[in-house]
């Protein structure tokens, strides 16, 4: 795992900046945070994530944390999961959440959109078979609803089923009664989320100021 030395080195930062598009300050900040989370280790483990207090009440934290350890999300075309990640991987994952730059061509925008959606897709597609099956989808919906009190698992299932059907109807059009919709493929995923401007929404603000002191 390409962990960094604990001493930040300028050259290394610059490489990362080229790779991920973050500014040097942002990388510095993120590195501080990384060290804070990993307790000055070179790598992060799942445990480190689960210890983040704010994350504790996130209903789908399991999926999110898993995404950090998913090889598909590192740009190395691997499959499977890893036990620990270094700073570079951490940064790569974070770079999925960079806001779009101001002047982008239509193609760049489309590409960015694909990348971001792929990340989301991978998060749903836990077994990496290229489709989000009903069961996978149900699982996510269940988790999503798990915090909202009285709605039970059955409702979650109902919602997941209905959503799945919607996907089927959007992406397949007319289906013969005996046809079987296996699950959401990435193409369908792109299609159903066409209305959502993912490229302008899936981002957070990375500050140039170090805020790690404020966080637990």
């Amino acid at each position, binding site marked *: 795992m390409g962990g960094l030395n604990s001493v930040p080195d300028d050259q290394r930062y610059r490489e990362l900046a080229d790779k991920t598009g973050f500014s040097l300050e942002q990388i510095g900040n993120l590195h501080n945070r990384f060290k804070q989370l990993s307790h000055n280790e070179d790598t992060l483990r799942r445990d480190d994530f689960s210890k983040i207090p704010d994350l504790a009440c996130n209903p789908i934290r399991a999926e999110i944390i898993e995404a950090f350890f998913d090889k598909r999300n590192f740009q190395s075309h691997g499959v499977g999961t890893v036990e620990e990640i270094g700073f570079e991987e951490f940064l790569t994952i974070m770079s999925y959440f960079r806001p779009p730059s101001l002047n982008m061509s239509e193609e760049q925008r489309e590409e960015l959109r694909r990348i971001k959606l792929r990340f989301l897709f991978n998060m749903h597609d836990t077994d990496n078979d290229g489709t989000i099956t009903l069961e996978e989808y149900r699982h996510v919906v269940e988790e999503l609803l798990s915090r909202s009190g009285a*709605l039970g698992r059955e409702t979650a299932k109902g*919602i997941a089923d209905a959503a799945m059907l919607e996907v089927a109807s959007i992406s397949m059009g007319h289906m013969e009664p005996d046809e079987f919709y296996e699950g959401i493929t990435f193409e369908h995923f792109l299609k159903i989320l066409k209305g959502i401007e993912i490229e302008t929404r899936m981002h957070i603000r990375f500050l140039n100021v170090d805020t790690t002191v404020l966080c637990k």
Partner: protein
Amino acid sequence: MHVAHSCLLGLVLLTSLTHEVPTEESSGSPSKHLVNETRHHGSAHHLETDSRVLRVSSGRTQDEAVLHNSGNHESAHQPKNISEVAIVSFKWDHVQEPYVIVLWIFVAGMSKLVLELNHHVTSVIPESGLLILIGFVLGGIVWGADKAQTFTLTPTVFFFYLLPQIILDAGYFMPNKLFFSNMGAILIYAVIGTCWNAGAVGLSLWGCYEGGAMGNLDIGLLQFLLFGSLISAVDPVAVIAVFEEVHVNEVLFILVFGESLLNDGVTVVLYNVFDSFVSLGGPNIDAVEIIRGIISFFVVAFGGALVGVLFAVLLSLITRYTKNIQIIEAGFIFVLGYLSYLTAEMLSLSAILSITFCGVCCQKYINANMDERSVTTVRYVMKVFANGSETMIFVFLGVTAIDKAIWVWNTGFILLTLFFVLLYRFIGVFVLTWILNKNRLVPIELIDQVVMSYGGLRGAVAYGLAVMLDDKKITEKNLMISTTLIVIYFTVILQGVTMKPLVQWLKVKRAAETEIKLVEKVNNRAFDHILCAVEDICGRIGDKWWTRGWKRFERNYISWLLMKPKPRKSKDQLFGIFHKLNLEDAMNYITEGERRGSLAFLKKEDDVQVDFKKKFGTDVEDMMPDIMVDTEHSGTDHVPVISFMRDPVPSVSLDMHEQDLQGMRGGVDAHHLLQEHLYRSRKHHRHKYSRSNFSINQSEDEVQEIFQRTMRSRLESFKSTKMGVAPGKVITKHPQKERQQKVRGHPKNFLVFYLSATGKNPKSHCVKNKEFQIYLESPWSFVKSFKSNVFNFFLCLYHTSYRNVISLQMANGKPTDRSRSHPYGDEDFEFSASASASDSASGGEGATAGGYSFRTPYTVGAGIENPAFMPEMDTPPPMHAPPWLNQPETDGTVVASQRAQRRLPWTPSQIRRLAPLRVSTRSEDSFVMADILSPDVDPEDPQPRQDRSHK
């Protein structure tokens, strides 16, 4: 009187009755005239004759002069000598005021109706502009008749009676999330932008005036600033009217719309400040006064918002407790909303901001607290009010223009105002956006800025403020009014017309016109959490952190205070959408069925629900514990969904209805069915005249009667089947072994009517399961014996592809009745009819299908299952929704997922196989036959119908 007159003229015009406008109307008695007008649109001759008629009918004996006099207000009410009793009297003056008002409202409504007749025109010119044009015409007629404008839009009428509901509507329907997430930008545009516009326009005009561009006017700097402040406000009414037709993207819309809403408040405040400055007079203003002005600006604005929030809290609290006065709960929002407006006005705070925030803040809680029907009522009434007064405002704006008295022309002043208004709007928007964009993650694009600037429409608020000017202090008041009107007409008509082409030409991102999709919502939800989590991970206290903090606070404290416990628990946005979509689907489903005229189609609904029951078995039990007493028998319902899902042939049939319907179409002889089965309920003839109760009456008697009829017919048909009277059966492909499904009621708790139609091999005409016991001769006598209101009766259908079991279960709260009702003293009161149904599409599936059975709970009122009657009783959409729609509302738990059910990926194969079975629900013959034949071709339709009908 002139007003009344002109009013009628407008009417006459609208009803397109051509008639010559009488020119010497003022000489005649107005009341007489009025009557004549209405009756004959009349010529002079008619006037004469009618006045006589009038005199006779009103029983007056005065001479002509008295009659003429009676037009005066003073003498109208007391005719001088009454020598005989008036049989009918004509009292125009008595009703004059409300009459005129209502007539004008009617005229405004009619003009809208006329406008909307032609879509080609409205697609080019926005409706608001057209309404103003119609106003011109109406005003012209009034002018022609009265030689003066007798009807104008006064500030009182506008600010007290026309504006509040529009603003309340805007607030109530405000997309809150969008609004608050763009709050910063909106505030900057609304506050800074408006101040900038006001100041810049005022100062520039003053500069030009000093430079001699306007000739000689009696206007000072302060007056110019005052004028600038009233002309600077973008008007929400105009903006909504134009932008709603254009469909720009949502961010752009909320920016323009939010700005227009909030800056009204700002404008009014600015106006008041400058107004008091003007009253003080230039030399008396020092720094202290200016500072006081600025302070008052903030106090007025935020104070107004605060008043609104307080009223929203009050409103939400009240709706928590309106369960017992449900019929009027919808009214509270209007009353309290208006009160918040008036209160703010009373405290000289910003009334517009007050009512806006009242609407914005209360929407979530009152929608959750109130009954769904009340919510619908509120939404509709809100729209009726808002749309109505919007129409009136535009028409009156047009009418007002036709008045020589207000028109003072000063080319320089008017043109320069127009120019500056446009120019500074553009400059303001561009500069502010430039500043905003530095901080925005998603910048506002250039073309959006152009549209924003161009969308700065002025409207009635400006006019109202202009009319409110004090002409003692401002000698050029009329010039200001006419300039304001010109600006309004220019922006609303010209800019309104060109807005659409501009938006198209600039290729502004339009709002994607998509229906709400569950997938999207689910994804959005997931999104929010993901973004939140990533923010947490990278350790930033960011936007999401604040949002989440607020959400938690809101959920824990505010909702706790303002929301009923039940919706609080089950209120989930995702679920809400799910529910809504389900409702929609169910409605469509039924509408479609009705359109095709097939009642049996509707009958199918229960079968769909069968699935539901199966799938959500546990939940349904929770919901209806009293009905589902026999849980021990519903064991089959608990088949885990997973196993269901792994049906060997899982598939999606998105077009399932289509197929079912095809099988059904033409097959159902609805008339016949109706004649045979339909209980012509007294429902149609007997209404409950209750002000507080709004349900269709289902009295106990009626229900019992229906029940009796149904049972009788069913029993008869059953007998006929049993005796082999039923029409001949067709051969099945795969005769199969049958397992008798037996449902036993718990003897202690209730009685089970058990009518099961099970395996019979049609080929050999032998009934395999000879379990055929009728312990009961006449079910209706049994029913009669029930005195209690609480007999819960429901029907369970056990359907599988090769088994057709019908069981009627009666749950009775009084076990003691049992012995009486049950002549043979048997423990179980059961009656099972075995009939046919051995067939299946494939044996392999049969095996799986055998593992479970379907079951339908019916809980409509005292739930009577009558194939013909049910649809009729259930279909009227919103008021009396079918049970599967009602349950989620009342119980707040799981919805009968029509949507999920209808086309589930893994059910269709089953459902499809079941489809023919549903054609005639209980008829085993048709079942057999239809199953063999393809569902599309249904040659034997009359048969099963017959069969069923004499059941």
